[in-house]
């Protein structure tokens, strides 16, 4: 006779063994009265425990009704709503920040250039203009001013486009969450 399989018997009794191990235990049980007796003791205990009946309790519908009365109103829906509004994607937030940074950088560059030219022209006059190689300093400053205006207009347009995109995205999110909740509430 092979070695006893006492340590596997509880798991066998509870239906927790793999198929191959179960077959191994079953084969062993055919030839081992000692393991068979142990298994019968386990089965006997389970049967004895389950023979103790449950006391009568509240009918299930009434119980469920009582639970419903205790539930806080809409807490699950509220939590779901909070969870279901996704955060703005990182790149959407990144666009206005990048525009601000680029705009500020270019603005600073243009402002510094204009200031330097204006100061040089004011103090140096014609000599400065000759040194710079420009015949008409006001024209140069005017060009820079126009460039600045174009840059501001470009950045403003991009901002407006981003705002429009964000508004549409937000509106779609609200509609989908509201529809989901309305479908469930009514």
């Amino acid at each position, binding site marked *: 006779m092979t070695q006893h399989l006492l340590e596997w018997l*509880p798991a066998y009794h509870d239906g927790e063994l793999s198929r191959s191990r179960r077959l191994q235990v079953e084969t062993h049980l055919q030839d081992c009265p000692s393991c068979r007796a142990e298994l019968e003791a386990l089965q006997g*205990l389970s049967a004895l425990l389950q*023979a103790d009946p449950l006391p009568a309790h509240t009918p299930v519908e009434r119980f469920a009704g009582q639970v419903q009365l205790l539930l806080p109103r809409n807490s*699950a829906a509220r939590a779901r709503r909070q969870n279901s509004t996704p955060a703005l994607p990182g790149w959407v937030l990144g666009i206005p920040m990048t525009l601000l940074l680029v705009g500020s950088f270019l603005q600073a560059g243009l402002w510094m250039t204009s200031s330097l030219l204006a100061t040089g022209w004011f103090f140096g006059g014609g000599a400065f203009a000759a040194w710079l190689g420009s015949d008409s300093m006001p024209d140069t400053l005017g060009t820079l001013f126009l460039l600045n205006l174009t840059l501001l207009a470009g950045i403003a347009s991009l901002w407006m486009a981003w705002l429009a995109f964000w508004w549409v995205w937000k509106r779609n999110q609200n509609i989908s969450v509201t529809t989901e909740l309305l479908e469930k509430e009514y």
Partner: protein
Amino acid sequence: MTSPQTAPAIDEDRKLIASAQLGDRQAFGELVCRHQAGVVSFIYRMCGDPRLAEDAAQEAFVRVWQNLNNYKPQYAFRSWLYRIAANAALDVLRRERPVAAIEDLPLSDKGPTPEQAAEQEQRNAQIRRAVSQLSEPLRLVLVLREYEGLSYQEIAGALDIPTGTVMSRLNTARTQLRRELATLLEEA
């Protein structure tokens, strides 16, 4: 004993949970109906007082509703539910000791004659006393396995312990019960 959950029953639970997570109280009510018997029975076997068991079971279901959004569908719902129920049962045991002595509890099913009924009641009282004498960790595992039919894996999930611990606690509990109930086991 509550039977192990079948795949269609698990799928049905998942659908109801998904609806309940969106605030569908009717779906949650159905979920309560499906698991009421198991949860009430589990808490009753733990605390031994039917009235306290029902109150604690209701409390457990309210906690389930409040925490539904923390439930992850990849985990077994029964494990999660019984974890909450186990906490409710332990709260009951710590908050208010059962008013009735566990062996004096009323039975729903009496024997055919008064003598047989008394004899049966005495046996059942002895069983309940033996179960109630187990330490809480042993009793939790034993009740979940013997009365509720949870698998080792589900018990491990419900009690947040390794499967090996489930097996060793179950073995210890059974050994103690076999010693306590030796006379009844021999008669049977």
